[in-house]
Each structure stands twice: as structure tokens, then as C-alpha cells.
């Protein structure tokens, strides 16, 4: 009886020690040293979907037809066959562009290439990786087990598993830099940025894009600004346009650790379907919990040692007691 109390007390103490270990939160990851990305300015988008067509062409995916209309891509959302899509926000009479009430706006959805990507953090086999230099979030189907945890861990519902294929895989934008395409490594830009006729999708380094985005927010609504097109660092062309009333911040500067693909808009971001995110990435919290408990497997190893000892003692008693029974 005495010994039993001792075991219980020591177990309780161990439990309390474990519980009081403050969870070592790791901070959000920092942007990759040569992070590349895109800036999507919703106020410049005219909804032509040239980016959608170009994306399909670069990635070898068939366009989505509606009935026998084949002149445009009718993809409504991201899918295993659509890595980039233009969606529309509409309210009431939808009379004026970039107005929240009785207005409309366009929104581009594709992988945001998070600075601290949830999909990479939760992938058990490193099938999803963040390029150490460019920060591009890549996918390797050759090691992927298809558990789809990346889909649960992505705050933007970006990774899409092909359910209608017995040997399906995850499909997501890899910023036109996957094996066999490698547009970025070859000094080029993404297909969507290249195809965009208004500069709504702009390619460049994260740093330069963020500076450009902040410059736009600081402009006076109504003044004329020379908007660059293509690559922000070496624009192919410029287009003069009247500056709208932008929302006060760049989506993706800080949301859940920030993204390499950033957005600008004149209407609130949640209206464009952006999720409710704070500044901490869920990945950093989750990894903090995991590494507190499983750092070098030390805690589990100690627990196994202790358990083995206790069980060995108690099992002897239990078995002995059993043999004593009539």
C-alpha cells in the first residue's frame, strides 16, 4: 500500500512537471532570403481570365468548358485541373466596380506561397517543401502518401487532391517553377503575371512587391499613377490609371506569418473570401506543441523507462496475486 502511494505520488509529480513545462512556441518563419512572389491588385483586374488560360497552358491542364462554350475557361474554383482562378464578388445591383455595396470586384485565388506554410508543416513525408532560397512551396508526388493533411492545414483551401483518379495526387500552384517548367529558375516570370494585360498580377521579389504595394496604399485616391506590368523589378510596360481608395493594409504582409503572393483591394478582404487570420501561423503553434513534447524523443524515452520499471514491479505483484487465487 505504501509503495502504491509512492508510485501514484511520483506519477502525479511527473504529470505536473509535464504540464508546467511552458510550451516552447517557435516564432513564425521569416521570409526566404530571395523570396519571389506576386502582387494581385484586385482594383486593376478586369476579369478577363487570361491568367487562367495561360496557367492551364503552362501546366498542361484542360480548360473547363460550360456546355459548348469553349472560348473561355469556366472554372469556378480551384480543383485538380485549375491551379489559378478568378472569382467575382457581387453585391446588390453590382453597379460599380470595387465598391462593397451594390458593387462588384474580382479576386484571384491560387496558392499564396505562405512564408510559414501550414501544408509544409503538417506533411509527414516532406512531400511539400518550402524552397530555402525562393520560398516557393513545391510538391513532390513521388513521396506523397495522399493523407491530405496539407488540405486540412492550408488556411486557404489551396491543395486539391484528385478524388476521381484511382492514382490521384495533390495539385497546387508551384509558381511555374516545378520540374519541367522552371520558368523562375530560368529568369522568367509566372505565366499568370506574364499574361495579365492590366498588371493586376505582378511578379517580382517579395521585398519589391511589398514596397510597391505600400506605395500604392500611400497614394491619394483620385490621383493618376503609372502602374507597372509583368515583373515589378523590370516592368515590360506601364499603364496610367486613377488610384482607387485602397484598404489600409496589404493582405499577406503579416497574415499567419505572411505570404509571398500578396493582395490589394478596395473592398474588405473577407468580402473577397479571405479567411479570418491573425498574425501567428497555426503551423508555429502546432510545431511548438509537438517539439515541446517530442524534442529529441527525450520525454517519451524517460516515460518509457519509468513505465517499464513501474509495470515490471506491478505485473509481478498482479501475477503473483493471481496465482494465489483458489
Amino acid at each position, binding site marked *: 500500500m505504501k509503495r502504491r502511494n509512492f508510485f501514484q505520488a511520483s506519477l502525479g509529480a511527473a504529470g505536473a512537471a509535464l504540464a508546467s513545462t511552458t510550451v516552447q512556441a517557435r516564432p513564425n518563419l521569416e521570409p526566404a532570403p530571395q523570396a519571389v512572389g506576386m502582387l494581385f491588385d484586385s482594383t486593376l483586374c478586369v476579369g478577363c481570365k487570361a491568367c487562367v488560360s495561360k496557367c492551364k497552358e503552362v501546366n498542361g491542364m484542360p480548360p473547363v468548358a460550360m456546355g459548348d462554350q469553349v472560348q473561355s475557361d469556366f472554372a469556378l474554383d480551384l480543383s485538380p485541373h485549375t491551379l489559378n482562378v478568378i472569382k467575382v464578388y457581387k453585391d446588390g445591383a453590382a453597379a460599380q466596380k470595387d465598391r462593397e455595396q451594390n458593387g462588384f470586384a474580382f479576386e484571384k485565388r491560387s496558392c499564396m506561397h505562405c512564408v510559414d506554410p501550414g501544408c509544409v508543416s503538417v506533411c509527414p513525408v516532406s512531400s511539400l517543401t518550402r524552397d530555402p532560397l525562393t520560398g516557393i512551396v513545391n510538391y513532390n508526388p513521388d513521396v506523397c502518401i495522399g493523407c491530405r493533411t496539407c488540405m486540412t492545414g492550408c488556411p486557404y483551401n489551396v491543395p486539391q*487532391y484528385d478524388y476521381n483518379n484511382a492514382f490521384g495526387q495533390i495539385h497546387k500552384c508551384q509558381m511555374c517553377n516545378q520540374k519541367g517548367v522552371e520558368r523562375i529558375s530560368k529568369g522568367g516570370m509566372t505565366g499568370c503575371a506574364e499574361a495579365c494585360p492590366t498588371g493586376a498580377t505582378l511578379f517580382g521579389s517579395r521585398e519589391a512587391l511589398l514596397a510597391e504595394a505600400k506605395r500604392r496604399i500611400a497614394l491619394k485616391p483620385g490621383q493618376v499613377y503609372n502602374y507597372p506590368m509583368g515583373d515589378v523589378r523590370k516592368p515590360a510596360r506601364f499603364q496610367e490609371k486613377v488610384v482607387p481608395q485602397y484598404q489600409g493594409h496589404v493582405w499577406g504582409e503579416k497574415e499567419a506569418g505572411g505570404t509571398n503572393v500578396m493582395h490589394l483591394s478596395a473592398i474588405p478582404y473577407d468580402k473577397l473570401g479571405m479567411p*479570418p487570420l491573425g498574425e501567428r501561423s497555426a503551423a508555429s503553434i*502546432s510545431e511548438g506543441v*509537438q517539439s515541446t513534447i517530442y524534442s529529441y524523443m527525450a520525454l517519451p524515452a524517460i516515460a518509457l523507462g519509468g513505465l517499464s520499471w513501474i*509495470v515490471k514491479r506491478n505485473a509481478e*505483484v498482479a501475477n503473483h496475486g493471481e496465482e494465489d487465487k483458489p
Partner: protein
Amino acid sequence: MNHHAVLNRPLLTPPFLVLGAFGLTAIVLLFVRFFMGMGAVTNLNGGYPWGIWVVYDIVVGTAFACGGYALAVTVYVFNNGRYHPLVRTALLTSLLGYALGAAGAFIDMGRYWNFYNMFLPWQVNTHAVMLEVGLCVFLYVMVLAIEFLPTVLEKFKAEALQQKLSRVLFFFIALGILLPTMHQSSLGSFLIAMGWKIHPLWQTMELQPLLAILSAFIMGFAAVIFEASVGAVGFKRQPETPMLVGLGRIIVGLSIAFLVVRFVTLLMTGKLGLIFAFDLGSIMFLLETAMFIYPVVILSSPTQRAKGKRLFYAALCTMLAGALYRFDAFIITFNPGAGYSYFPALPEILITIGMVAIEVMAYLFIVTQFPVLAREEH
């Protein structure tokens, strides 16, 4: 020495054949899944990548299978030897329940042929909850098989082997306590990375693992009572009520701890008001809480819990409360936005039902072949 006996009842009864029909249906549907893809039999989509195969077969099913784990902690850590007669049946249920979980994980795996990458040290991501859960469940199924081995050896009277095994069994019992502690808590950690998609009433971030392990214990103990009660009625055996009452008292303590952690967290994060929003989340939360409290009330009363029937209903209600807690968090109140919705497809449901049917058939087969059930003391 022989405290356990083979159940002397015919195996091929009408209920067994009905189970067989469900099992066969599942096997046929699994052919469709493997030849035509998951889309042919499920309603999974871009927003709901995890349906009932993950959430029932793995997340809920393995918690139901925590009876072996919960009893092992009680008997071997807290030295309550009087529960020893229940250990064997609990171990068998755990083995079968975890085997179902592992099978569920495999059929849900979209690229199962790449499975081996989970074992390649240079390929794994040690931060990933899925890696830990996958490896732990895989190992634990093997540990459970080893823990069950003495029963098999007893049948074949392999005494020399029994002796050898009994000398090292303590290590496997210890491992069989450590592994579920790890992965059952990690089932909660999955919810952390899902962030905003988890309803605020279920999103407790750092406390997810604690609530998950508490609910696993609660469901495990309840499953032991449930199984013993069903066994007593189904096999017309003497009920083990006095022993089960003790387990009922443990459930009371753990359930109160679970509710306290939940409500204090909600209070401290200022979410208490959401309980009375009377939307889907609030209603599910109230239902779930009521289902946790009802058994606590029954099991706290010495006169109520002494009645076998009441004890059984309390255990059943506890199991369902724990299951609902996990279903609520992972599916029912899970909301990825963007207009996505999910309700399981009929073949998807039939596959899960059929796999559970096969599990029950395996249980019936094994208890009529091996000395699993405690010998009745008349």
C-alpha cells in the same frame, strides 16, 4: 492458472451472417474505391479532405479501442490488480479497434503505394502530427498483438514460449501505455494546425492534446463497461457489475476534469457567450455537454450505478459523448468556408459499417476459439 475460458457457443448464428453480409458489401465497394478512385464512393472534396473514414475509423474508433490502454494504466501503473480479469477482453477489443483504424487509414490514403516513405528517416518531417500518429498507431497494433500473444500460446499450450514471453512482456505493456498516450493526445493536435476552420468552441489550441487524451481515457473506460455489459447479455453470462462500478467512478473523475478544462478555457478566452448563440455550434456543444453530464450524475449515485442497466446506459452515453466531441470538432462544426459542405455518401457509410461488422465478426470468432473471456465464478 486458467482464469480465462473459450466461449462455448455456436459461431454461425443469424446475427453473424448479417454481419457477414455487411462485411461483404464493404469489400465489394472497396474494389470500386481502389479501381476508380475515392470520388466514386465518397463525398470528400477540396474543403473537406477528411470524412468519416478518418474521423470514425481512426479518430473515434481508436478512442473506443482505448479500453486496453485505460485498463493497462489502472492495473499496471496504479496497481489496481482487481481489474485484471477484464484486461484480456479489453486487449482484444483494442487490437481489433486499432486494426480497423489502421485499415481505415490505408483505404483513405490517396497514394498508399508511397506509404513506406513514413519509415525513411531522410524523408520524414518530425514536426508533423500525422507522422507521429501514423508511426504510433502502426507500432501500437504490433504491440497489442504481442500483448495478446499469451492468450494464443495458452490455447496451444506452448508453455516454454509463454515463460519466455512473460519475462519481457512488462516492456511491451509499458510501450502499450506510452504509445496511445502519444498518439491519442496527438489526435487533438491535428486540430491546432487546422486553425480557423475549427469552431471557436472546439479550438483550444495548446490544450487540444490534453482534451484529446482525457477523452480517450473516458471513452476507453466506458468501452470496457459497454463491452462487458453487452457480453453478459449477449453471451448470457454473469455480469461483472461490481468490478465495472469501480471503473464508473473513474469515469466520473475524468469527465469532470474534462468539463472543467473545457469550461475554464472558454471562460479565459472569452468564448463562453458562444455557448448560447443557439447556432449549429452552440447546439452541438450543449448536446455534447449534456451527454457528458448525464453519465456523471448516474455514476455518482451509489444506488444508480449498482444497477447493471443504468451502468450500461451511462457507459454508452459516455462513449457517444466522446465520439460526438470528436465528430463535432473534425466534421460537424468544421468549416473551411468557400461554400464547401460535406455529408458522407452511402457507399462511404457502408464501407465503414462493413469494416466494423468484420471487426465484430473477428471478435466473435476469436472468443470462441481462444481463452479470452474471464472464467465465470459460480
